[in-house]
């Protein structure tokens, strides 16, 4: 019985990881340089989940974060010739590269993650109820 609590917990952990990357994406919406100070706009990160067979029983599958992918799409170019990070030459001369993050997408994703989190909490409550009832046979 307690293994279903483990399954739900694995989902809580995974959804929290997802929420963390989403907050990272939103926090870095206008980050123009990377950690080394190079003019490279932040690129959206997203988690990919995979099933995690908890190893014991057939059919019992938890979830885990498979990998964190970095979006390889084009950045957004804005015309800002006076900006210190403006591109010097080429097609996007005088433009500044901004992260291409769609806030609506991020919020919808965050909403989905927190609803999934809630759903798993709900399942945990039911699991606890079932265990409590079974144990109540003793008393």
């Amino acid at each position, binding site marked *: 019985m307690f293994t*279903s609590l483990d399954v739900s917990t694995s989902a809580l952990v995974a959804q929290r990881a997802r929420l963390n990357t989403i907050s990272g994406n939103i926090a870095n919406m206008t980050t123009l340089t990377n950690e080394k100070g190079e003019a490279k706009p932040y690129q959206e990160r997203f988690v990919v989940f995979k099933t995690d067979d908890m190893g014991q029983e057939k059919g019992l599958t*938890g979830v885990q974060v498979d990998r964190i992918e970095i979006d390889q799409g084009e950045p957004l170019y804005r015309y800002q010739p006076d900006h210190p990070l403006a591109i010097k030459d080429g097609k996007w001369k005088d433009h500044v590269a901004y992260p291409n993050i769609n806030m609506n997408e991020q919020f919808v994703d965050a909403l989905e993650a927190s609803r999934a989190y809630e759903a798993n909490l*709900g*399942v945990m409550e*039911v*699991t606890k109820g*079932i265990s409590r009832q*079974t144990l109540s046979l003793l008393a």
Partner: protein
Amino acid sequence: MWNGILQNSSIETLTESVKFAERRHQLLASNIANLDTPGYLTQDLSVDNFHEALQDSIAASKQNRNLTGPQDDDSANNISKQQAQQHVHKVYEQILYHDGSDVSLEQQVTNISKNQAMHSTAISMLRHQMHTLQMAIAESVNV
């Protein structure tokens, strides 16, 4: 004597129901946990198959009792019951989403509620049976 008490009451049957409901709950919890996992397919245990197996084995044990008096369930029935409990199948009712998964939250939540109701019914009846037994043992209604 004790075997007779257990066989004439529904304690065995109810225990099987409780075991089944708990096993099924684990699967339904897995389904909810994997709501956002690409390529995950809904899994479930068939309630109908379980009830059928349970019914068969009740019928068989009744027949046995009529012929030879109380005795333990024969092993064949236990096996079919176990198979009904362990046969995890993939459910193909939902259209796949674009990521290859097909878990419908609403469907799963409904299943969990139904399953919980089945579990608590069985537990309540079990408690009642135990209470009755205790009353008989204590020879008093105030147990």
